[in-house]
């Protein structure tokens, strides 16, 4: 076995999300086939993503495929930054050293359409088409948590339409951390909702929602929290941003982008899509 600190393999990052902070040290939080989450000693997660994983703002994506990442790393292992290199201990002794030198800084902004009547009209039409085609399936039947998330999303939409700050906060409280998985369905829906807000522009109701959400980040899993923090900072995963932007282009592009988004996680992509569509409908269906 190689001694810790010695490089076992050298990898390269192709891109760095806008919210990745290089430096410091910490421990491997959790490992999956296409992602390794790293918890910094001062808090916050950074994700090391496989070359074929969708990009996220708090993640750095590898340049080449290295197989199933969960077979390389184990939770609790140490990592540290050495300049531009991320070094992660492996169970086999030695480090995997990931160089970020030359990695592209990445972000996928959602373009505001509120001031462009044509794009806004297209987005609204696309949302309506997707709803009519039932392109976003109802995942509520899968688990009581998903069903409850869907009901609370409806409650949030109702509260948003009426600009009822208390009801908005109550709905957010019920949604955060609701659902069985690693990124609970309620969180995914809220992330989608924030993408919808980014598309249409913020208002007073939006600020109420953000404040309610910030105050409740401790009620969900660390991994989901990292995604919610990205979304609160106006940063979204690649397929979600692409879907939001495609809504303002053509129905065909929206449909294609939705298909890509649906491939995100087990049900995360579709839950986020449901949140985004609900946000657009709620915002367009009221004059608060």
């Amino acid at each position, binding site marked *: 076995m190689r001694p810790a600190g010695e490089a076992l393999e050298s990898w390269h990052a192709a891109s760095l999300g806008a919210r990745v902070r290089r430096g410091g040290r910490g421990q491997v939080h959790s490992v999956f086939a296409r992602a390794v989450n790293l918890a910094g000693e001062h808090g916050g997660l950074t994700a090391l993503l496989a070359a074929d994983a969708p990009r996220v703002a708090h993640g750095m994506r590898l340049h080449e495929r290295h197989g199933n990442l969960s077979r390389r790393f184990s939770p609790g292992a140490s990592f540290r930054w050495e300049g531009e290199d991320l070094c992660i201990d492996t169970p086999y002794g030695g480090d995997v050293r990931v160089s970020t030198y030359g990695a592209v800084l990445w972000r996928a902004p959602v373009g505001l359409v509120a001031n462009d009547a044509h794009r806004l009209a297209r987005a609204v039409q696309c949302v309506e088409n997707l709803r009519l085609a039932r392109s976003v399936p109802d995942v509520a039947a899968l688990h009581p948590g998903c069903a409850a998330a869907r009901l609370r999303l409806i409650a949030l939409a109702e509260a948003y339409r009426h600009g009822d700050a208390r009801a908005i906060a109550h709905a957010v409280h019920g949604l955060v951390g609701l659902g069985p*998985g690693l990124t609970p369905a309620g969180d995914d829906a809220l992330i989608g909702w924030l993408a919808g807000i980014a598309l249409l522009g913020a208002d007073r109701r939006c600020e109420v929602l953000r404040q309610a959400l910030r105050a409740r980040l401790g009620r969900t899993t660390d991994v989901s929290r990292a995604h919610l923090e990205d979304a609160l900072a106006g940063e979204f995963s690649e397929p979600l941003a692409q879907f939001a932007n495609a809504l303002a282009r053509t129905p065909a592009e929206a449909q294609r982008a939705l298909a890509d988004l649906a491939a995100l996680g087990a049900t995360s992509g579709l839950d986020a899509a449901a949140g985004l569509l609900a946000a657009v409908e709620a915002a367009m269906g009221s004059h608060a």
Partner: protein
Amino acid sequence: MPKFHVLRKTYRDSVTLMQLASKLARLPGISNASASMATPANLDLLREAGTDVGGVQAGPNDLLIMLEGEPAAVDAALAEAQKLLSDRGESEELGERAAGQKRAPRSIAMALAEARAGLALISVPGEYAAAEALKAVNLGLNVMLFSDNVALADEVMLKRQADARGLIVMGPDCGTAIIGGVPLAFANKVRAGPIGLVGASGTGLQQVTVLIDRAGSGITQAIGTGGRDLKQEVGGLSMLAGLRALAADPDTRVIVLISKPPAPEIAQRILGEARRAGKPVVVNFLGAQTAAVSGGNLHGAHTLDDAARAAVALAEGRAPGQAPLPAAAGSLPKLAPEQRYVRGLYSGGTFCYEATLLLLEAEIGEVHSNTHVGRARDLADPWRSEGHTLVDLGDDVFTRGRPHPMIDHRLRNERIVQEAADPSVAVILLDVVLGYGSHPDPAAEMRAALSQARDLARKAGREIAFVGQVCGTEADPQNLNRQSAALAGMGMLLANSNAQAVRLAARIVQR
């Protein structure tokens, strides 16, 4: 009282946890089970459902398993949960790697990372199937979607997505395909050869590929489309894609299309594409006039048997010939005057459909069926026969809560005995489907029922003709010769194909 188990800092995706909870809830003695991250919202949800979670010490990053039921069952379920979770755990993953063992991938993307593939076979409950198929298409894979209960709108969306990427989605509810020589789902082991097939019918594809093999020829690909592909809403997208692929394939010299008659507009689109294939295309739209689907490079076939025969002839450069008169091994039984009716008990839907058409053509009287074909009368009660009756036992009404009759013969065996007790029955017509997916030894499975039925009739002074065909090949796991010999030994009159079996049955009751 519910029992809780907390797994600290354990992370699983939602589908894994839903599957775990569902599996635990089905264990004997368990009345309720859940598995989710112990976020306050999820604990609230349990509280709202009346579960006391007061003593639970867990945070949002802990996995919480809740079980209710008999105490011993709860302990066993908890052990099962831990085992299931550790099977998927990272530590074991590393252990397996050290032992040089390979673990099954947990997603299509993971599978792709480990092996080159061009096709994903998806067999998950219908509610998840469209999402999985979409993932596969997005990863650049063709899809065979075995799952049923997929919404028509989802099928249209999936097929359009695939079409835009130059891919094909076979299904949903696609039960048969042979791709690159590999039989998938319910399919037979047949020779490689110059004939490519696209079919909207599983047993239709099985019959034609088997008969091609039996005639000494073979196939390039047998592409299934799913039963709804040729509906107006779907537009035959999979059949068109399959047709184009076979037209472009230099190893395919003859193409066979199999389907029930499509909507007229779709039929024209399919036939237009077939005319542009640049090679002979045998068209078997069961029940359609052959003249309407013939001309130029198109050769209409009336039955599945005719389609196989024509394809082999064309592949060998001969003109398609006439089907021979039905012949069957064994002597015909002597029937009493009151024995007038045919009762067909089918495990293959297309066999039943074709049989109903052919029995109507034979003009032996009214035909009742649950397959809704032409002039056939709908059965008032599918569980009871009347006059000439042909029943598709693979219909939903029979398969709710039990396996398909190709796998589980119990229902058909009971019906065989039920029909034998009816003094008006002359012929019991059966299909026996071999190949992957089917019962490992259908002849043995039918033995007791056939014997009981024969004894029952004999005690009443009657003989019943059991007529059938075995859809299979020598290379199938059940072996055609072994099955045929066993069935003939039980007194069954065996024809070479479904069409020939039906015509033989008609001749017996016409005597």
